[in-house]
């Protein structure tokens, strides 16, 4: 585990999956909010996959999605879910463990 955390600091890419349903206001807002946060805090060390459940409803089962929009962080561990249009940036950062990790990253410099 310790090794993993170490590697998170340096090399890991954030694997993010955002579930939306069509072009609703919340969905569109969530996509742009997520892009903005990642750009700002993750230095392009991230991958975003946007899943539109309107088109592929069966994919809702894989991450047990109930609410829309839902952001799922599959990597780094542990798995976290954030519900909502991601307009509250602080909550998103806490949810994705971004702040903590970038800080340690900074300190290690």
């Amino acid at each position: 585990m310790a090794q993993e955390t170490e590697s998170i600091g340096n090399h890991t890419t954030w694997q993010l999956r955002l579930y939306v349903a069509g072009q609703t206001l919340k969905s569109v807002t969530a996509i742009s909010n997520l892009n903005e946060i990642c750009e700002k805090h993750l230095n392009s060390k991230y991958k975003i996959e946007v899943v539109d459940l309107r088109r592929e409803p069966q994919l809702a089962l894989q991450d047990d999605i109930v609410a829309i929009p839902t952001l799922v962080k599959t990597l780094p561990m542990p798995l976290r879910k954030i519900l909502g249009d991601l307009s509250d940036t602080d909550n998103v950062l806490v949810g994705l463990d971004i702040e903590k990790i970038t800080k340690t990253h900074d300190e290690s410099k």
Partner: protein
Amino acid sequence: MSLTNQRIQQDGKLLKSLTGIKGLDEVTFGGLPAGRPTLVCGNPGCGKTLLTVEFLVRGAIEYNEPGVFISFDENKEDIAINAASIGFDLADLSKKGKIFVDSISIDHNQVGVSGGYDLEGLFIRLDYAVNAIGAKRVGIDSIDSLFSGLTQHNLLRSEFKRLLNWLKEKGLTAIVTAERGERALTRNRLEEYIADCVILIDHRVERQILTRRLCVTKYRGSSHGTNEYPFLLDSNGISVLPVTSIGLEYKVSDEHISTGIAHLDTMLDEKGYFCGSTVLVSGTAGTGKTSVALHLANATCARGQRCLYLASEESPHQVIRNARSIGMDLEPFVKQGALRLVASRPTSFGIETHLVATHRLINEFAPSVIIMDPITNYSDIGSENEIKMLMMRLIDLMKASNITSLYTTLNGSDESLYTSSMGISSLMDTWIFLTNNEYSGERTRGLSIIKSRGMSHSNQTRDFLITDKGIKILDAYTGSGITTKGGTYQWMTLMRKMLGDPMSQWRKRLNQ
């Protein structure tokens, strides 16, 4: 009421969907509102989930209405195990496309919130499942888990309302379950949103025995049974007992059946009990109640009819042995299948279990006579009123099936002569009272018929003997307006033989 139609049209407009659950369709007069959601609420462990599962599975199997089950409480494996406990193979039904099981878990340790959201994901999943199998029924169990997983209750409420509308729009007959609340019907006051049908289920432990009950508290646009109905959850699923709904509309028979005791038949209009009537035999300990019952059993089986004997104090072997001591061999009847002896202590189960078990036996064995010997012990498992309700349900069931039933009940020796325990004598058509009189240093058995509805019957108290050839009712001595009993009777008979009628001789002497 015919329940053969899958959907029943009533009052012109309201369509109903049969659940296929035993008794529930009678209580709701034809099933749940078709194409609409029904709220089922109750405490944890009262059987909400199994009710929902049975509703879906019966729909899929019996009415060709595939169903979607969405669980917020359990994972798919647990659901399958639970369903198997009432005899359903969910995996097989899923394979055949008749049932779609989806489980949703919301782990609030894993979930954060940032900004607004809705439950569109749930709708998408539901829609996907419904389309995948062409579902007509939906079960959602339980909605409260959603409320405990997520904290935005105002949002959940409006989404719940949207869900109900969605179900209605799609024409899905649905059951939504919710936890019982302390002040309101449900914890999150969801009953405010479901306007059509609300079913309350409940389980209570009284006198150390668990009793389950079901009650339809609301059914818009339809009449429904208003009582609390006991129900049973066992390996055959749910059975609700709406037996009182038969009411008093049964047909009665003019035929008679023999009591098995020649003289007793004579006392009862020369013919015996009415077919389908209820007979109470009461008396203090050792007065011969069981013997009267055994005579009826013996006579019924000898005629080639079936008799169900429910013994609550003796084992089947003991009943057979005792019958042999009064000259009846019941064993061949048991072997032929004409007589079924079932022994169980009333305290082994709750009232509703007895009711259901008896119900099943009656349906399965189709007896023409049922004997319950004795019913006194049932007072151990419920209040007088509950026992009376139990008896009433049983009696209604038996009367509707034209089954003659005989009950024995024990009177305490210090009780008044006519005290029949549990106040059930009013439910009885014929009441035979047995006594044990001590007179002149000797106990004499006496038998009298306190009532027998719809027939003329003897008003005399008759002496009887229990011999190795069965009950022998003696001729009453009625000379000169005096009835004598027991030893006196025998003495007088002897005197009469020797001297002629002593009374008339006396009278002659007086006249001289």
